[in-house]
């Protein structure tokens, strides 16, 4: 990515003139606003922003952005994004996907984008439901969920996107939620500034088909006790009174009262430690839900390496000549 001077933008500069057609009250509105705000604050040229999405309510996203936008096929946004970024690494590529789009039909592409470390931001709008097709359970839906397609309760156990991302070696992994604009903006900016694949899971409320799916985690009343806000290098402390902390007991993380432990017992957040990241991604049940940047580590990007290899070969062999190519090693002349 070429470094460009920062531009002065307002959030509204990223607004397309199209009518937004999500249901009133849908969490997608807030995410849209946060992405626009993040882009404005980052000040990167808006014509260099390319938003690629799949299909789903969430995937209508590019239509509402005054950037380049490609509303592609269900599950396939990472593929189109790979082509865009490899063809032109100067572009800022954003992928918008849903839990169905990204982890049902698109699970393989997203996994391969992770492992390849394509330099892009992947925003997962996780509402734990298929919105656009009117409310079937999704791969992130809890087991036994009653939906249109599961009148007797769903059977499939849910998948945890963060775990898959970390297992697939994603270099930046974070989580945020739709009712915290500031948190979203900061997370999106951090994601954009990371060089490599930046995966952000966003808890998103679908008012129509899965209203309140995340209330037990992010509702203001419980949030302080049920989430863990991560800061690199800082001890893992949470609770309404900042009274609780995470301590490692052998392989297992457990919750302790701050007062019961010494400071050096408290686990410190190290986004570069893969084991720690794996652990955090797995937090469930009694453990608080981690929010913020869970993993951040540097490794070569796919698009960078593809292009570097081309440059290297050009440097070594010189720019190709068609006549030489055609001739190959075994041509002869008839005269």
């Amino acid at each position, binding site marked *: 990515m070429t470094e460009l001077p920062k531009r002065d933008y307002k959030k509204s500069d990223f607004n*397309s003139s*199209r009518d937004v057609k999500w249901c009133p009250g849908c969490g997608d509105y807030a995410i849209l606003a946060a992405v626009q705000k993040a882009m404005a604050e980052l000040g990167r*040229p*808006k*014509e*260099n922003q*390319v938003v*690629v999405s799949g*299909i789903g309510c969430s995937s209508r996203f*590019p*239509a509402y952005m*005054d*950037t*380049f*936008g*490609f*509303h*592609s*096929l269900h599950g*396939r946004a*990472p*593929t*189109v*994004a*790979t*082509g*865009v*970024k*490899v*063809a*032109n690494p*100067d*572009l800022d590529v954003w992928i918008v996907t849903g839990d169905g789009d990204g982890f049902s039909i698109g699970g*393989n*592409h997203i996994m*391969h984008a992770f492992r390849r470390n394509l330099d892009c931001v992947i925003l997962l709008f996780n509402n734990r439901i298929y919105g656009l097709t009117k409310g079937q359970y999704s791969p992130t839906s809890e087991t036994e969920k009653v939906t249109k397609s599961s009148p007797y309760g769903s059977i499939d156990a849910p998948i945890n996107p963060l775990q898959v991302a970390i297992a697939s070696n994603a270099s930046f992994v974070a989580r945020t939620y739709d009712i915290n604009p500031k948190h979203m903006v900061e997370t999106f900016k951090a994601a954009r500034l990371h060089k490599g694949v930046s995966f952000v899971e966003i808890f998103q409320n679908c008012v129509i088909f899965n209203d309140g799916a995340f209330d037990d985690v992010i509702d203001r009343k419980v949030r302080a006790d049920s989430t863990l806000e991560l800061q690199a290098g800082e001890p893992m402390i949470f609770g309404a009174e900042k009274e609780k902390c995470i301590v490692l007991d052998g392989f297992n993380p457990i919750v302790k009262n701050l007062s019961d432990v010494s400071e050096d017992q408290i686990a410190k957040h190290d986004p570069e430690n893969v084991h720690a990241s794996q652990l955090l991604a797995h937090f469930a049940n009694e453990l608080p839900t981690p929010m913020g940047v869970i993993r951040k580590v540097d490794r070569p990007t796919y698009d960078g390496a*593809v*292009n570097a*290899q*081309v440059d290297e*070969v*050009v440097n*070594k*062999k*010189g*720019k*190709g*000549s*068609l*006549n030489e*190519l*055609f*001739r*190959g090693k*075994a*041509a*002869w*002349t*008839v*005269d």
Partner: protein
Amino acid sequence: MNAPIETISIDNAVIRFCGDSGDGMQLTGNQFTDTSAIAGNDISTFPDFPAEIRAPAGTTSGVSGFQVNFSSNAVETPGDQPDALVAMNAAAYKINIEDLKKGGVLIVNSDSFGKIDLRKAGYESNPLEDNIALNEEYEVYEVPMTSLVQEALKDVELKPANKKRCKNFFALGLMYWVYDRPLSHSEDWVKNKFKGKDLLIEANTKALHAGYNYGETCEIFNSRFNIEKTEMEKGLYRQVTGNTALAYGLITGAQKANLDLLYATYPITPASDILHELAAHKNFGVKTVQAEDEIASIGIALGASYAGSLGVTASSGPGICLKTEFMGLALITELPLVIVDVQRGGPSTGLPTKTEQSDLLLALYGRNGEGPVPVIAAKSPVDCFEAAYEASRIALEFMTPVILLSDGYIANSSDLWKIPNAEDIADIPVKFKTELDGQYLPYKRDAEKLSREWVKPGTPDLQHLLTGLEKDEAGNICYDAKNHSDMCKARQAKVDAVAKTYPKTEIYGKGSGKVLVIGWGGTFGNLHTAVTEIQKETDDISYVHLRYINPLPNDLGDIISQFDEIVVPELNLGQLVKVIRDKYVVDAKSINKIEGKPFKVAEMIEQLKSFL
């Protein structure tokens, strides 16, 4: 010294080397071909690999063959039947002997007809032992190649196993003697190939000479053959396989359009070699992406086209199926894209290493909704070059995905390529829209080509939305009835407009008459040879070979109307014939072969004559 053996001048010869996968038959065949081509003959080759990587040595499923037709006249096919067959072991003999022309030359490595060899090949007794019957049908030469090579290399300090491996060069040398070819090309090749490994150079060179000298000195051979140089246009020549030529055509298309080429694919037989070839040419700005699957690879190619490169993807039947949904997105977003289908035997996984022309209807119709896409086909190994360039041209000129059909036969076969001068190849003009002038309408169309403008992401003020949903001219999602109807028709009209850029359809033979043969794709060599042969007797037959299948050439209807009978030979159960019948309401007849193999000239002559 013996009395010199008579050398007979002949016009052409078809020879086949066959042996175990590990015997180096492809290499041997290629050496013979190169030498013949450099010696001034026209050539055409047909390699035939086993489906298994390396089936147990000595079994019939591990047999590999390479056939070459070389001639003092122009040749278009590798030949129906070999005039001479070199069989390196019993299994190879078993698989190939049926094909040898009656009266042809059979050379076997008699050392590989031992008990174990015979058992592996599934023989109860040695088929060579009934030499009399065999000798009635063929000119049989049993040569103990393995022992002869070991003897010849006795002074070379190599392990016996490594010496044995040189027996293919013995066979090559022997065939060079039989067909009176120079050894120099292969000598040079060996030096180059084994640079630094002097023992291997010595061994292979000695084996080559030993083979040649065996022919010269032992008295068993009845005759040698000489094939005069072909009258050829002056110029630079080389052998080229279809897949290599196709790769060159893509590079050329991109270079002539001044674009980067991004080739995204997933390995599959028989298309993988295009990837292998392209991956070696990154200095042309070629980016190759080996994707996680076929869907990803077309998505990546499309993304690259969107970003301003020439996006290309390739596969064979099963993988093409997986790309169909994305083809729809490419055509509705009107981005350039080349999709190569190197056809193989189907349905399903089918016959991966065998050839067929049975993906035509898939290419034409295999998308949901009204999804017109130009479809063109390559007709020979060398022609893959032009076909790939042409596919790129149409894709870029008309902002459309284009399907390019090749097949397993021409992909792996080779013929002689008169190398063009790169400067003589036309540029493909590509103009990106770079500035806002008034309102930007992404789907505004060029008056003539009906194509839309190409805008690279990164272009200020030209932000826009692409979507697979129906949209209006401004690119906004639009479910309006009339708009949809207009858009569907406009997309169709654009594809139809491609036909305006075609050259006049070439007719081999008279422009009217009794029978018109219509062919397409990789059957050209055999069909053209067959028709030319028949035309020596009668001018009642003419021939058209289609490069362009969708849209069909505008002049084809007129041509068809000038003939009493239309015959469409295809390596399928009748696919192009359906299109011809539908489009021209003519009772076109079908000639079908679905055996995983190309047509033979002789069978084609016979079948075509039945229409006369």
